[in-house]
């Protein structure tokens, strides 16, 4: 082995070296090291740069990055006994690197998937061929709580139902898998940009040598995408970002994006509807709004259409939308396409609408509504993860291998009672990447969320919000549960 390492230009690390105690595990794909423990070719510069940097200097960089997050107010809110607290998402300054050809493949896969999902949404709110042709069961679509009857027959510019998509991807030994399509109000893009700004400062030499592709034009791409949705076409449209307000956990991101894109940040009460048009209250009177990038759920858009008890929305907004006088991104009702049982049909949806084989694989999914899927799930509860189809954020979930026999039995009862409410998937061997710890570099599980934009055309920046489970061994990357962020470097070819 040592001979091979020498050939690959990477001598074995010495005692006290940052990576000296780093242990790869054959069960998990490692983002930086190959099966022999040698740094992968596209990571070598970073490996050498980190190894050559004194440990205390790395610790200082780490500390400085986190302090700058606090000073710049790059925070999210957590609700506890003492009211809302502002916290930062911890950053690990060791970037995750994606080689040029890997990204090229991912990008094609992401474009393909979003294209198909938009066609799917246009179809289910339009002619409904995909249901008539028996590709997907009618009740799964129309019975989905996220299906919005009000959207039937609504004209959507360029068929861009989903204008901003944040797809969760994981890597295993089998390659990249799509874990979840986030098609409603995906967040995290501000952390992608903040992590880049912090890491670029700390590791500028390695960053330059690796020829990392830039992501800083995300704001401009987003603005262009939104402008293309304007019902007024050629004129310079008035675009607003609609936020639930400062108490929303993603408020920092809303503010950040409003500034990046140069649009006004509004709340429901700032908008009024008159004669089928949407206006915002300005110091100079009412001003017509053309495009709303909303960062609130469907339910809170318009109390007249969706939830009468909501105080957040703007009465009459949906009517203005249906009349074609304002664009809303993402369109209401996109949540039906990221439902966990519809997810299982996405490969078929791609084949049906595009007549192509899907590039990005799904996680193997068993629908408990099918007798076979139910039987398989109940027989293998100790090996599977069972999820509620409408659930999110880890709620209503059973992680079989970590549950007790009693918990599994109790859950099996719930599945039998309403099988259509559940799906199951194998527990995934998420890939790992090195993180800075007090004892040197250590492996932690990671995923990634790239952001794909769709207006008249599809656009994406070569980057992603890379989430990392900072607790050793943990697979939970959620920021509310001990997850952190990493910069993700996509290399030029």
């Amino acid at each position, binding site marked *: 082995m040592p001979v091979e390492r020498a050939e690959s230009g990477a001598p074995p690390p010495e005692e006290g070296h940052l990576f000296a105690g780093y242990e790869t595990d054959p069960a998990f794909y490692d983002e930086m090291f190959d099966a022999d423990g040698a740094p992968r070719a596209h990571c070598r510069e970073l490996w050498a740069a980190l190894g050559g940097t004194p440990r205390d200097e790395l610790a200082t960089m780490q500390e400085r990055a986190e302090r700058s997050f606090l000073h710049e107010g790059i925070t999210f809110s957590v609700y506890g006994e003492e009211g809302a607290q502002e916290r930062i998402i911890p950053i690990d300054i060791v970037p995750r690197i994606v080689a040029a050809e890997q990204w090229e493949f991912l990008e094609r896969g992401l474009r393909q998937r979003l294209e198909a999902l938009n066609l799917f949404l246009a179809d289910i709110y339009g002619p409904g061929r995909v249901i008539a042709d028996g590709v997907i069961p009618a009740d799964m679509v129309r019975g989905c709580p996220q299906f919005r009857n009000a959207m039937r027959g609504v004209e959507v510019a360029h068929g861009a139902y989903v204008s901003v998509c944040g797809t969760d991807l994981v890597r295993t030994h089998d390659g990249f898998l799509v874990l979840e399509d986030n098609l409603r109000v995906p967040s995290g893009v501000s952390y992608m940009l903040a992590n880049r700004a912090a890491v670029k400062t700390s590791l500028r030499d390695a960053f330059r040598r690796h020829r990392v592709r830039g992501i800083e034009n995300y704001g401009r791409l987003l603005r262009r995408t939104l402008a293309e949705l304007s019902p007024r076409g050629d004129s310079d449209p008035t675009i607003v970002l609609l936020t639930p307000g400062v108490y929303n956990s993603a408020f920092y991101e809303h503010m*950040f994006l409003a500034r990046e894109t140069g649009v006004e940040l509004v709340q429901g009460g700032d908008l009024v509807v008159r004669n089928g048009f949407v206006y915002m209250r300005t110091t100079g009177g009412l001003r017509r709004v053309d495009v709303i990038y909303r960062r609130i759920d469907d339910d809170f858009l318009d109390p007249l259409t969706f939830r009468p008890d909501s105080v957040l929305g703007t009465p009459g907004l949906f009517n203005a939308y249906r009349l074609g006088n304002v664009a809303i991104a993402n369109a209401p009702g996109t949540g039906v396409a990221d439902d966990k049982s519809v997810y299982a049909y996405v490969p078929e949806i791609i084949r049906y609408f595009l007549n192509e084989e899907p590039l990005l694989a799904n996680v193997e999914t068993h629908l408990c509504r099918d007798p076979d899927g139910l039987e398989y799930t109940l027989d293998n509860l100790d090996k599977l993860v069972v999820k509620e189809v409408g659930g999110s954020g880890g709620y209503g979930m059973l992680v079989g291998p970590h549950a007790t026999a009693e918990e599994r039995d109790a859950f099996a009862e719930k599945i039998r009672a309403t099988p259509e409410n559940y799906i199951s998937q194998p527990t995934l061997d998420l890939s790992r990447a090195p993180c800075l710890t007090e004892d040197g570099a250590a492996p932690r599980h990671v995923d990634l969320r790239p952001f794909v934009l769709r207006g008249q055309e599809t656009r994406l920046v070569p980057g992603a919000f890379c989430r990392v489970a900072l607790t050793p061994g943990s697979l939970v990357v959620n920021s509310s549960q001990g997850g952190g962020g990493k910069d993700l470097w996509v290399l030029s070819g």
Partner: protein
Amino acid sequence: MLSRSALGLYWIGRYLERAQHACRLIADQFETMKDRPVDEIDKGWRRLYGGLRRVPVGGELSSNLDDEQFMLVDAFTLADDLTFEAGNPDSIRSSLANARENARQVRHVVDEDLWSCLNRAFFDLRDLGIADIWQDRPGDFYRRTEDAVRTFFGIAESNMYRDDGWHFLQLGRFVERAQLLSALLEAQLAVYPARGQDTGPDAGPASEAETSDPEAFDAETSDAGADAAADAGPVGDPAADPAADPDWLSLLRICAARDAYGRRHSLHYDPAAVVDFLVADPLLSRSIRYALAQVCAALDAVSAGRPLIAEAGRRAGRLAASIDYDWPNRDPADEEAIRATLRGIGESCRRLHDDIDAAYFSYEPGDGDAA
């Protein structure tokens, strides 16, 4: 500009002006506490509470002028109340926290440098208590905090695009200033009723409280009464001489007006002249007249082309005009009337705020507004 964004900037202006005003008042009180007698310290607190329109905990200030120790312990409590007390909405910490919270809500229209200045200022004092600053030169703390506010406005001055956002920041700042000044002057007259009219121009000469040579300046002034007093020769009771009263000097210091007053008038701190200076001087940045000029300019800038909502502008203009044309006709000896006038100015500022709110922030949109 979105009304709510403008409203946020307006309040940032108000809260920071309030914080700065409190810093200046309290820092000056610490100066008084260095070497002035107990009864002057007591009066200083009364002016402070009056000027900040704060009712002391317990309803009124408890004084025990015979017990110096009591007065010092009391000072600790009072300074804490005005500086750090979370339950006091106008304490310096509350003002900074409110300014920051407003900035957080409209951060997309707040320059990055401005935000980080405000955010740091807040974090610098968030975890402090009065005990942390009491022992070691407490004046430094207030100067540091005021510096942060000055830095904020300095950055705003150099960075901000002069659109509505800038004008509403200015508007908030100077509406607050006019209102705070009227309250401070009213409190000053209540706590230190001028004794000039009782003792007449024959009162004693300038006191030792003045550090520079008063005669040199007096010779250049046309204030016959003051000249006569300076010529009177024998050193009398300094408290009997209104021109020598350190309380009027300290008022000028609080308003950063001592040097300007000295150049413009004399080093005799004649109460009527000091009040006139702080109300009506158009060149003094901490005069009511100057603040109103800024308010009028900001309102002009944001109201361009909108005759329907000119009520705020008219009220501000009337107020400024009354200082130009009515104020000079007052009877300087009638302090009751002057205090009533100052109260009236404060009340007008409150109405002005309501006008601004109704015109720009919480107006009921009619169909005619839709453009």
